[in-house]
């Protein structure tokens, strides 16, 4: 047999041995890995969805407006002026009366708004509580061509029902315009302390010097 042929056979044999050894090594390693390693899996599904309480089904825990002082319902109250050359105040209260002053260059007009809860401080979803707004002309000038209307946009947390509207043509000094609104909760979270905001805009549309002012009411409720 030629020497070169012998060499080729030797090389082939060594290669086969190496490949066989590697093959066995890989198999051994694979078996060992599979045996001594475990993968734990976590699979979850999170559904975010405004939860509407079914009619007649109340949660075990009531939802009530955030506690203010005493028996007052908590809410923040903000006002803003759409037009006018002066901004006199931005007020916040805890459901007590608030006085906002609107100044013009020619004369001073004052409005006093009182908000009162008429049927308690707490309500479960589907229950109704009422708020009473009183808008008083505390200035010494009769407001003419005035009206008080309200508009509101619901974000789904509450059903807002206006049970009374005000449409006064004039509001003399000291006269009070009344606006009643009722609210019922339609949604409730499960976490205690969760705060729900509802922004209700009502317009005090007294035309004084052709200036219009709009007031925004933000009601805050907390799950207890």
């Amino acid at each position, binding site marked *: 047999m030629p020497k070169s042929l012998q060499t080729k056979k030797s090389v082939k044999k060594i290669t086969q041995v190496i490949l066989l050894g590697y093959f066995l090594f890989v198999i051994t390693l694979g078996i060992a890995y599979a045996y001594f390693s*475990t*993968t734990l899996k976590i699979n979850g599904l*999170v559904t975010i969805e405004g*939860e509407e309480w079914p009619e007649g089904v109340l949660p075990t825990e009531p939802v009530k407006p955030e506690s203010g002082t005493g028996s007052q319902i908590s809410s923040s109250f903000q006002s803003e002026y759409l037009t006018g050359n002066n901004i006199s105040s931005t007020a916040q209260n805890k459901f007590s009366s608030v006085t906002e002053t609107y100044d013009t260059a020619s004369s001073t007009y004052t409005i006093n708004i009182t908000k009162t809860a008429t049927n308690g401080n707490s309500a479960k979803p589907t229950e109704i509580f009422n708020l009473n707004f009183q808008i008083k002309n505390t200035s010494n000038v009769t407001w003419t061509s005035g009206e008080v209307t309200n508009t509101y946009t619901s974000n789904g947390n509450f059903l807002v029902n206006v049970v009374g509207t005000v449409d006064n043509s004039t509001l003399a000094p000291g006269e009070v315009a009344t606006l009643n609104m009722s609210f019922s909760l339609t949604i409730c979270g499960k976490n205690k302390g969760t*705060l729900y905001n509802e922004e209700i805009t009502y317009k005090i549309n007294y035309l004084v010097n052709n200036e219009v002012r709009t007031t925004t009411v933000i009601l805050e409720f907390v799950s207890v």
Partner: protein
Amino acid sequence: MKKIKEEKIFSLIWLLIIIMIIGVSYAYFSSTLYIYGIATLDGTFDIKFSEASIVNQTELETINISDNGLELSFNIKLALPGESDTIEYTIKNNGTIDAVLDELVVTSATDTDVTFNCSSIAGDLPSGETKSGTISVTWNADSVSPQKDVNFNAEIVANQKVS
């Protein structure tokens, strides 16, 4: 000629005798001791979820561990932006081999409306011991999505501890 033949026969006989003597001596003075044994590898590597729960669980929410203990599934429902809930789970080393847990790896895509925060779980898990972790789920307060399903997938790899 005959003499030579006889010498050869004698030599062969002597050679046989010598070989027999050597064989008898070897048989007499030699002994083989055999030891039979079976080496059994009975170490077990058994890492499983042992407990799982949802904090503030409602009737609409579920959580369960698969029969083989290797998979944890949950279903969380959040009602309002800003709400959150927490999943608590425990992993137990039921085997005889000490293990090391890798960090939890989230394998699902991220979502802009829901945030998952996972506590650290990595570390040693000796035989017979447990290790607990949490996953908090929050519907982001600034989310404007009215309704959505968000999947969460994660893996925790447990390896044999190598000293």
